[in-house]
């Protein structure tokens, strides 16, 4: 059978191309003793070297003058790692090429100073003892800072009774201090007794005055001699027992509350969100029943919401993804827009401060909530190897990377599960070294999968897709051509095939989806998901230089006749 027919293939080349610029060249790196900007011991290109000082075309680690090690401040007992030899010695320090944990002088231990503790070196412990005039005790066997701080215990205090001007008086202090001789030879120490205790028969009596004490959270009653008594509790103002012996914080009023805004209880707690402060009408809700001090509420009000003291949370910025532990996939059209950043907000002492997670969304803000207390952090955006993943499981392995799988849409140059294809793709994503191909779109149809050479490998299968960054990173596309290489991964040339029937009409037979406007949007979404690519608004809502239509072009119509 002779089949007559003329098949015209109209090759309509549709291309999507993206913004690019030229990449700077990276020259040989020198170890500069100092750079022209004044930084010490940096590996920099020759044009950044201060040539009046030493420089050699090698890494600083290989030089004698900029070798990194530990700098020991033998007077203060402080060890600083990653310090160049020259910088340390010029500053008057002792330099050792070993790491600090291998240097005896830098070994840390628990230094007890009065009722406080610090996890420092032995020299530092001695120095702190000398500075603060306190007896110190260094314990090198304590292996962590938290254990050290927990080990700090206050010395037992009590009523130190003595005579002054023929009057029996009292000071609330430690036994050691009481017996030091400062209060004369005839002293009596009454452990855990308050000076206001009637049984002691001193001239110190209870008052209605209160006081805030440095390094303590609570409001304390004062006796008439100015000594501290127990934690302020208005219901105990006339309670003889409460003015006789020391009552622990845990046994004082409302020990599990911060007592902010309480007029009757001064059992404040910094970690629960309050601290002792002098009453101020503008800051405190209620006036204390006695005295001038209250537990001040340290929580914050932000955007109409109340946050507890110590809470941190991610800012609700329209142009970045809102991230929570159950965050799935974002919307590339409205999130992670060019110029946007992630921010962390911090509530401390009644004030909210803003911490940016940095430019180009190289860090993202993550947040979790435990029983209504939110904690947030800026952490690295692990987007770099997304494009190298060829299956959904690897792509969405959140322990390794921050990627998402887009079903049914493929980046070009992907040869299914071919290892070579993935490697090639990663290589291309990392920046093409071939100037002639960099930024050029790949050819393909909407259905076929092509390898890097443009050869058709296989037809699209069910379940195919693309692995793209979950939080699209930013690029400095105005000064580096790397953005061009990355964005080019989403560029595609789609060949549309038409068949002309005997009646003369044309019918699209292949690649027809490329003619639909939804295809352009789909490709642009893929493009935008890669980073600052494609057509989108920026973080302040201004449109970019190109819109979707400008990134789409038809070209090259070719006729082919096939006769059998």
């Amino acid at each position, binding site marked *: 059978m002779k089949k007559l027919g003329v098949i015209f293939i109209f090759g309509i080349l549709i291309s999507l191309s993206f913004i690019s610029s030229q990449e700077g060249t990276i020259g040989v790196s020198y170890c500069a003793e100092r750079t022209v900007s004044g930084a*010490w011991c940096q590996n920099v290109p020759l044009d950044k070297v201060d040539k009046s000082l030493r420089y050699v075309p090698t890494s600083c680690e290989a030089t004698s003058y900029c070798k990194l090690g530990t700098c020991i401040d033998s007077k203060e007992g402080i060890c600083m790692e990653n310090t160049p030899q020259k910088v340390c010695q010029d500053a008057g320090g002792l330099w050792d090429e070993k790491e600090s944990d291998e240097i005896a002088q830098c070994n840390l231990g628990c230094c007890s100073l009065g009722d406080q503790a610090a996890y420092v070196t032995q020299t530092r412990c001695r120095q702190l003892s000398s*500075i603060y005039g306190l007896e110190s005790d260094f314990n090198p066997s304590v292996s962590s800072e938290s254990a050290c701080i927990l080990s700090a215990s206050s010395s037992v205090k009590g009523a130190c009774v003595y005579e002054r001007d023929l009057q029996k008086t009292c000071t609330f202090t430690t036994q050691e201090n009481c017996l030091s001789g400062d209060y004369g030879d005839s002293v009596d120490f009454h452990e855990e007794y308050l000076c206001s205790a009637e049984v002691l028969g001193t001239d110190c009596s209870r008052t209605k005055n209160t006081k805030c004490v440095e390094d303590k959270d609570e409001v304390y009653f004062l006796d008439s001699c100015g000594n501290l008594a127990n934690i302020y509790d208005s219901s105990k103002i006339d309670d003889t027992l409460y003015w006789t012996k020391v009552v622990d914080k845990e046994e004082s009023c409302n020990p599990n509350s911060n007592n902010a805004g309480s007029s009757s209880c001064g059992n404040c707690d910094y970690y629960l969100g309050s601290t002792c402060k002098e009453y101020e009408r503008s800051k405190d809700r209620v006036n204390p029943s006695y005295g001038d001090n209250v537990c001040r509420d340290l929580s914050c009000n932000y955007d109409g919401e109340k946050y507890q003291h110590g809470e941190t949370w991610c800012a609700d910025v329209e142009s970045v993804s809102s991230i929570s532990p159950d965050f799935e996939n974002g919307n590339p059209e409205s999130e992670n827009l060019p110029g946007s950043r992630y921010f962390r907000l911090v509530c401390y002492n009644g004030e909210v*401060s803003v911490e940016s997670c940095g430019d*180009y969304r190289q860090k993202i803000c993550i947040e979790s909530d435990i029983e209504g207390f939110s904690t947030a952090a800026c952490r690295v955006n692990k987007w770099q190897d997304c494009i190298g993943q060829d299956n959904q499981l690897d792509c969405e392995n959140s322990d390794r990377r921050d990627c998402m799988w887009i079903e049914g849409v493929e980046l070009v140059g992907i040869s299914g599960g071919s290892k070579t294809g993935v490697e090639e793709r990663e290589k291309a*994503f990392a920046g093409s070294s071939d100037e002639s191909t960099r930024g050029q779109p790949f050819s393909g149809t909407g259905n076929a999968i092509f390898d890097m050479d443009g050869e058709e490998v296989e037809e699209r299968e069910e379940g195919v897709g693309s692995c793209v960054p979950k939080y699209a990173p930013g690029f*400095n596309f105005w000064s580096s051509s*790397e953005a061009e290489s990355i964005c080019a991964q989403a560029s595609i040339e789609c060949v549309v095939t038409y068949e002309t029937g005997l009646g003369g009409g044309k019918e699209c037979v292949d690649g027809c989806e490329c003619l639909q406007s939804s295809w352009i949007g789909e490709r642009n979404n893929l493009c935008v998901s890669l980073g600052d690519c494609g057509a989108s608004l920026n973080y302040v809502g201004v449109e970019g230089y190109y819109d979707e239509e400008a990134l789409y072009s038809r070209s090259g119509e070719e006729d082919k006749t096939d006769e059998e």
Partner: protein
Amino acid sequence: MERIFKEEKRELNKIEGSMNNKKGQVTIFVIIGVVLVVAAIVIFMFWPQIRTSFAISSDNPEIFLKNCLEDEVNENLEIISLQGGSLSPQHYFIYDGNKVEYLCYQEENYIPCVVQRPLLKNHIENEISNSIQNTGGKCLDSLKENLEKRGYSVTLNKQEFETEILPGKVVISTNSSISAKKDESNYNYGSENKLNVILDNNLYELSTIAISIISSEVEYGDSETTNYMNYYRDLKVEKKEQSEGTRVYILTDTEREEQFMFASRSVVFPPGYRG
């Protein structure tokens, strides 16, 4: 009739006299007011010199030196605090109009910073000492001159000024000695003990926290600001991420309203793969 006129005239004179008295009082008040205003202006304009002159009457050279040095030292302390511990930073990031020195810096990406000021406390002490040598010398000369004006025969042995930053204070000291003789009176200052000038400042605590943050920047490439605020109740730590990976830290003592600012660049993730 004439009598009536005389009496009226007398009354008028009385009223006039009383009016004149009141005018006089007003004039006196105006003069006193003007004198007070002029005195206030003079005191405002020449306060340091006046204060120094008062100080000499106390015959205490430490108070004299404190009054003489205090303004300059406080001014320098403020500059040093906002510039990462240096009066003239060599390598800095401009933040809020201040040259904030890098205490730790790494030009390359992805790797931890290299410490630029390993002995920060020592460096700050040297910066303060160097900045006041000249003024300190002039203050000693001025002290000598004041004593000589009062008839003393004065011997001055000038030595350098040293600085030590301690918790809550900055101590400026010198081994200089001054002896003054007049008739039976004989004073010796600084021969046995150093002459000390003590100023309230929290640079010690703030610089110690800065060192801790730098250690964290070296070890982890970043620091967690809330750790410090949990431990130090009156401390506010702000971390301001800047372009190109620079971080500016602002440490504020909320009680004293004193600040210390410094910059760091560590483990920077550039845009794209290479930046």
